[in-house]
Every structure is written in C-alpha cells, then in structure tokens.
C-alpha cells in the first residue's frame, strides 16, 4: 500500500497570530454558556435503561414463582473473574417441581469481583440468571457486596418465560408421553 504523504497546510498570518482562533473559541464557549444544562439530575431523574443493558446479575423466577436456576454451575464455570459460587442441592420430592430435582442451596455472586460481562446470562441453559437494570450497588463492607441467593431473587423478581420447559414436561407426563 502506497503511503500518501499529506502536506500540512501552511498557516496564514492571521492563524499564526492565534488571535482569530481565540476569538472564535471565545464566541463558541460563550454560546454554550447560554445554552440550557444537559445534566440528568440523577437520583431524582432516572436514566432510560436501553434494552440489553447489563446491570447487576440476578436470579429470576418463572411466572409460577418457581426458581428457574437448577444449579448446573455453568455460570460458575464460565465466569471470568470467578465471582459466582454455587452450592448445589436437591429439591425435596413432592415440592411440586419434581421434574427439576435440583436447585441451588447457596448461590453467591461477589459483586466486588463481577465485571458485568454477561457471560453467565449467555451460558445459562435455564435463562435463570439475568443481568437486569439495576446498576448501583453499595455496602458498608466486603461482606455486604456479596449477593446471596435470597437477595439475588429479590433483585431478580419474576420474568416472563418464553419456553415453559418444565410445564411442557408436565403436560407430556399427563398426556401422550406419560408412563401409563
């Protein structure tokens, strides 16, 4: 690829005195001086969160209020800063979610480590961990910056489910696929 030498344009005398430029600059700044402020008054006014925003990772329930996470630990595996720590456990039989069997006993996300990359959301096969709109987190100590399971569900709430995977399974059990 040929290198094109760009000749710098020689400055005119007016430009070299620097004065027209300064005056032009002064005019520009004084113009802005009289324009209204663009600042968002943050705590009172909230910014519009664009779709796909990656806020604090949370755990969500499905519309039946059932926890979606099955503690497959893929997020723990994929998490680049190793912020997620899961202790798996089994769901008691007869809890109404028999097809799930497994749920996290403990689910901790260390927000001091989290880099909001969203890989956990990407990898989650159950769409249980979602980076939502919450963007501000604070605490008085390191321990307060670790979100435990109950806090994660509190932050996450319930999201509409597109698949109803486990409901379909239940329908299959009573329908054609059942073991009659």
């Amino acid at each position, binding site marked *: 690829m040929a290198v094109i030498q760009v000749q710098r344009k020689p400055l005119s005398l007016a430009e070299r005195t620097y004065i027209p430029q300064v005056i032009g600059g002064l005019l520009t700044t004084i113009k802005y001086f*009289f324009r209204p402020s663009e600042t968002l008054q943050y705590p009172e006014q909230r910014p519009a969160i664009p779709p796909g925003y990656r806020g604090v990772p949370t755990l969500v329930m499905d519309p039946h209020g059932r926890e979606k996470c099955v503690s497959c630990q893929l997020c723990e595996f994929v998490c680049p800063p190793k912020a997620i720590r899961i202790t798996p456990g089994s769901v008691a039989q007869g809890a109404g979610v028999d097809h799930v069997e497994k749920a996290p006993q403990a689910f901790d996300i260390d927000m001091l480590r989290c880099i909001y990359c969203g890989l956990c959301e990407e990898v989650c096969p159950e769409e249980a961990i979602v980076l939502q709109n919450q963007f501000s987190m604070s605490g008085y100590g390191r321990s307060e910056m670790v979100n435990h399971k109950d806090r994660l569900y509190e932050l996450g709430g319930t999201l509409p489910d597109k698949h109803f995977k486990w409901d379909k399974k239940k329908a299959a059990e009573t329908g054609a696929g059942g073991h009659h």
Partner: protein
Amino acid sequence: MANFFFGLPLMVQGIAKGLAVILFIFPVAAACSMAERKVSAWIQRRPGPNRTIPPFFVGIPGASILQRLGIFQLAADGGKFFFKEEPLPNHVHKFYFILAPFIAMIPAFTTVTVVPFGAYLDPEGKVIPIMLANVDIGILAIFAVASLGVYSLILAGWASNSKYPFLGGVRASAQLISYELSMTLSVLPVFLWVNEPGSSGSLSLARVVEFQSHAGFWGGTWFLFTMPLSAAIFMIALFAETNRQPFDMPESEADLVGGFHTEYGAFKWSLFFVAEYANMIVGSAVFALLFLGGWNLLPWLPLSSLLEDLHRLTGSALWLNPLVSGVLSIAIFVAKVLFTIFFFMWVRWTVPRFRYDQVMRIGWKVLLPLSIANLVAYTVGIYFLQG
C-alpha cells in the same frame, strides 16, 4: 463617622484597615472559586454545584435559589477546609512547607491596599478616590509586591521535597520572571501619557483613572482604545502572572499531578487558592483601572458628569451626596472587575493549555519584543502629541 475613624490612633486605623482587607478578600476569593465552578459548569452545559443546603434552610423562600447557585456548597467547602485534618508528609521541609502558603497571602493582601476601588464627590464637587493607601508609587508597589508571590510557589515546590512539586516550582519561577518584564513594559506608555513632561508625576492608579475622566475626545477615552496592544500584552501577561489557563504551568494538572501544591492539603492548600483568586481580583482591578476607565461608567462619560447628568435629569441633590456617589462608583468598578474575572474563566474553557516550551517562547520571543516596540512607538507618539 468618618471623623470618628480618622480621629482614632494611626495604629488602630491600620489594624482596622488590615482586618477590612482580610475580611473582604477572603470571602470574595472564595466566592470567585464558586463562580469559577459555576462558570465552568455553564460553559460545559452542566448545572454545577447545586445540591447543598443546610437542613434548617429547607423551605425558606429564596433559599433554593442560593442552593442552586451553590452558595451553601461554598460554605460547606470553606468549613471543610477549616476542619480537615492537616496532612504533613514526612519527607517535607516542615518549616518552609508551612511557611509557603502564608507567604502566598502577603502579596495578595498587600497589593489590594494601593488599589482604588471607587470615588466619591466631596462637597466641592471634586472626585476623591477611595483607597486604603493613596501612595504615589501605586503601580510600582503593586508590581514589586506581586512579584513576591512567586516566592511562595518556589518555596512550596522546594519544601515539598518531591519531584512534581519541585518541577512546578521551577516552572513557576521561570514563567513569572518571563512575563513580569512584558507586563511592566506594557503599562509604561500609560504612565508616560498620564504624566505630562514637566508636571508633577505620580504612579498612583487613581491618577490614571483621573486622566481617563477628562473631558474631550482624547481625555475621556479609555486606554483600552488608545493603547490596545498594551492592553492585550498586559492581559496575556496577567494570565501568566496569576497562573491561569492557558498558562497554568506551576500547577499543570495533566503532567505534574498538582504541581507545587501536590503535597498540600486542607487549609494550607486552600490558602494557595485564596491567594490565587486574590491575585486575580487585584490583577483584574488594575486592568480595569488602567485600561477600562476605573469607575467611569462609559468612555467619555466620567463619573462626575454622570452624577451631574443624573442630578439634572432627576432634579434630586441626592446624587451629589458623597455616600451615594461612592456606592455608585464602587458598583461600577466592581462590575468591571467582575467582568474581567469572568473573562479569565471564559478564556480558561476556551484556550487549551500551552506546552511549557510554548509558554517560554511566547513570553520571550513574542510578548517581550512586542512590548518593547510598543513602548518605543508610544514614547515617540507621546513626544509628538504632548511635546
């Protein structure tokens, strides 16, 4: 009241005047810092500090306006500086380190005494300037004392005993020396013109204003119009002398952390900035006096004519009262000073900072030759004009 004051012993008068200076300069300098923040914010289309309000002010009508102007923020900052812990790094030369900010205060407070900030009409209709010390050496006193200010920066930089402050101090000394020359040379034509050959001369600033108050075209015009080059050189040098952008070499936040004050904090740090703003105020005042006609409202409209016109128009003798005339003149003068200070801030957000070598080049290779040429040209001009 005036009689009572002048009846007091000289010592008490001096102390009272000194206290008046301190009580005036401190709040005004602080207010300038808030003004700086607000002007910066508005130029950048931000609101600036607008949230602080003491709880017991909430709900009082008008307090919210003060809140939005950041007045309470100013108080809070001041209070903070008073009550903050005074850090004293281990490696500094403690005596000089503590001394430096106080030295910075000396020129700031001293120069203000020879600056006239208004005038009143005495019963004979004579315009008497208001100033703390009407000395004949006026401008010389200001230059002499103001140039002491650099010592505080050098001292701070050196006493900090670490490299960034040291570099800041060195730059400060070089810069201040460089620009002092052009500054002094740029104002010489003014005094050459003011003091006609043969008459009894004075370097008092009040005399310069008096000169700009004469009748007639040449008499009433401001020196800004008759000596634009002088005004420009003086203004640029003033920027450099007060370490304002685009010449803030000693501080150089981008490359020297904080320059000479890197190691300073809390009250000592704030003293430097009070001094800087005091310098700015004095500098602006001097510029207003020299080139903007002092307390004259408009060119060719000196204060005395203004008051007489008002008297004639309204038919009220009140305008000729010394007190009213004094307040009016101070108001006019302060307005000019404030505009000049605003101009300082305006330029700060317009012109990017110069590199150190550019600062030196502008000082020695542009401003100095220009001011010398300017001086020679006006000297010759004045010779033919007055000669």
